[in-house]
């Protein structure tokens, strides 16, 4: 083990705890301090990624006790990709915040660092209760970040989000209690190994409540009532953070529940089917709602719901192709949808004709629809081929239909945005961050074999109940 995965969680915590000590040096110094931790995290997650790529899984025990007596972090191919993705985009996204807009900036930085640390924590941990704790941190910091937006109505949206989020996490906690009362363990892999010993009714309830609880954060229909309000009223760079951080961590948590946690369950096939149906409804409802939405931010919010449905469908295929598709779709959504949210503020200012923002938005839209050579293309490609392998024609039809819908409303978004000249200026940091996001989507698409080989090597162990 070259690097300790724990550092990805603990270092931002250290940063968050200590940032108030340097607040008298002003917003610029605080921003530098926060960025230092985020970019350090980026380096660590890149090293971790290389390590997993060359040597398979990485595990780390906490406090010296071997799991399930203690907690451990379990990094396989899929979450190594995801943790790198979250830390990469979170670091660049942080640069787009202006200290003067977010007074007091040291508190804002605390919330942002905690949001990043907890998203990494959800993705890395191998323990169900530990995952719940990180969900709590991610949720609480998200509520406060949303409420800090310029639009004053964002406070109302944040309260709605908070109520739904709290109910969701209560369901998650009930589920964990049910599992613990039957198995006396909280470790994901220990539960997975012995899930057959649980009573059928209790197991079904545990599964249902877990999906409901995580589903609120993962924007799954019908638990996603908060999404349009929150994304519609938040600042673009806060929405982009929610898209690249907490929501990606949540959909990955769904993957852990469906693929790993209920691995040994006799009713797993039914559970996967339920998830598939939820994913299809989420996809179609989200995309159709986006079509009828005029406001650009709310349209992107509904589109985001649709994309999360698409990822859920890929996961619930339960095959190697499905997991590979899910990884590409997560990369695609975290990169280009975040970039579009960043452009949405410029869009609202009047337009983006003849600007770099406009050009980058065109790239982001192409990536989102799934044009080659962007990452989204491979996501949809593997999803379609995975669905075709299993003869799921309804999935293929839904994906093609929603892609057409998506192409239509995104073209409308672009044509309006590009037909008007911009009035306000765009901060160069925002353009740099958007370039990184669209660039990553393009690079992952061009060098898809790197991710494909790594993930498909890891998927075999993942699908047989391993890390």
């Amino acid at each position: 083990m070259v690097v300790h995965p724990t550092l990805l969680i603990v270092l931002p915590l250290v940063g968050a705890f200590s940032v108030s000590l340097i607040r008298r040096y002003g917003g610029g110094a605080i921003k530098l301090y926060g960025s230092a931790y985020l970019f350090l995290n980026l380096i660590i997650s890149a090293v971790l990624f290389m390590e997993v790529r060359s040597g398979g899984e990485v595990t780390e025990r906490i406090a010296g006790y071997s799991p399930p007596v203690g907690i451990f972090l379990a990094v396989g191919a899929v979450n190594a990709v995801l943790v790198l993705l979250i830390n990469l985009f979170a670091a660049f996204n942080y640069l787009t915040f202006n200290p003067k807009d977010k007074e007091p900036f040291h508190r804002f930085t605390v919330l942002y660092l905690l949001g990043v640390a907890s998203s990494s924590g959800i993705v890395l941990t191998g323990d169900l209760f530990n995952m719940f704790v990180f969900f709590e941190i991610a949720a609480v910091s998200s509520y406060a970040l949303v409420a800090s937006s310029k639009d004053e109505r964002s406070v109302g949206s944040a309260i709605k989000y908070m109520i739904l989020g709290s109910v969701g996490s209560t369901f998650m906690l009930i589920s964990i209690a049910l599992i613990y009362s039957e198995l006396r363990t909280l470790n994901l892999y220990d539960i997975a190994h012995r899930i057959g010993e649980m009573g059928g009714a209790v197991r079904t309830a545990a599964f249902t409540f877990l999906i409901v609880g995580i589903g609120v954060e993962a924007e799954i229909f019908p638990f996603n009532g908060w999404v349009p309000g929150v994304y519609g009223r938040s600042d673009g760079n806060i929405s982009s953070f929610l898209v690249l951080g907490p929501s990606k961590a949540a959909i990955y948590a769904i993957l852990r529940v469906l693929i790993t946690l209920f691995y040994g369950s006799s009713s797993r096939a039914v559970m996967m089917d339920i998830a598939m149906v939820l994913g299809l409804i989420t996809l179609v409802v989200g995309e159709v709602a986006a079509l009828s939405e005029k406001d650009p931010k709310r349209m992107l919010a509904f589109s985001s719901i649709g994309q999360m449905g698409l990822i859920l469908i890929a996961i619930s295929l339960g095959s190697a192709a499905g997991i590979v598709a899910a990884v590409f779709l997560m990369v695609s959504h975290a990169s280009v949808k975040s970039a579009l949210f960043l452009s949405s503020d410029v869009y609202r200012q009047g337009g983006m004709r003849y600007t770099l923002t406009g050009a980058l938005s065109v790239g982001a839209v192409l990536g989102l629809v799934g044009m080659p050579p962007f990452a989204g293309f491979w996501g949809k490609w593997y999803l379609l081929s995975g669905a075709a392998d299993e003869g799921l024609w309804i999935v293929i039809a839904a994906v093609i239909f929603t892609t057409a819908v998506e192409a239509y409303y995104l073209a409308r978004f672009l044509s309006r945005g590009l037909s008007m000249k911009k009035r306000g200026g765009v901060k160069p940091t925002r353009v740099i961050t958007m370039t990184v996001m669209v660039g990553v989507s393009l690079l992952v698409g061009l060098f898809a074999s790197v991710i494909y080989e790594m993930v498909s090597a890891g998927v075999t162990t993942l699908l047989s109940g391993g890390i």
Partner: protein
Amino acid sequence: MRRAVSALLALLIFAYLFGVLLKAPIPGDYRDERYNYYSPLSGREANESVPDHYVERGEEETGSQNIVTSIVVLYRGFDTLGEVTVLFTAATGVAFLLSTQRSKGEKEKKKEPNFMASTGVGLVLPFILLVGAYIFVHGHLTPGGGFPGGAVIATGFVLMLVAYPRFQLREKKVSVVEAFSGLAFAVIGLISLIMGLTFLENYLPKGVAGTLLSAGIIPLIYIAIGFKVGSELSAIVSHMKGGEE
């Protein structure tokens, strides 16, 4: 109509959960063989259950006489770091939002405190702080620990705010305590990594279980948690009241 539907839905969920709980077997002895765990790292089945391990080997492995504390601070110490952070996140969120959206220029009338209240608080405050500190310092020996100890300390400050309307927490000083106590917890864990152990692993002598100076790093962590929880809860109340930034 909407209300009726919501109420019906809530009733249905309640009935479902109740039905599930009726079907769930009454939890048996924690030492029962069916609870024996599977170790994901070695891939073997153990011949003990997780709670059994805590009860039987907790004192020997951690040096803490209080088994609950050994679980909270060491076995599941990472969760506790997270829980402290949840509170910290909430406190920061409150401070962040209240300081940006506070209406300026409004000054509430400050009533003179009741004589009984102000004298009484002056009298009990030292004892409240002492009890709070006692609870978290003895966390590895007696029931309690950092969270309740910190909460007791915070009630002391809440009483001050109630009895003396002009009393204000020095926001800067509180945030220094908040910062250093949080850092202490994280750094105690990071020292383990530097020493070549795993995060939060004990590196101090365990001593004799049952004495004050025992259980290695547990008392240090609980003292840090006590200060952290105490300062955060006090800061939340002070911000709600409208203290100065």
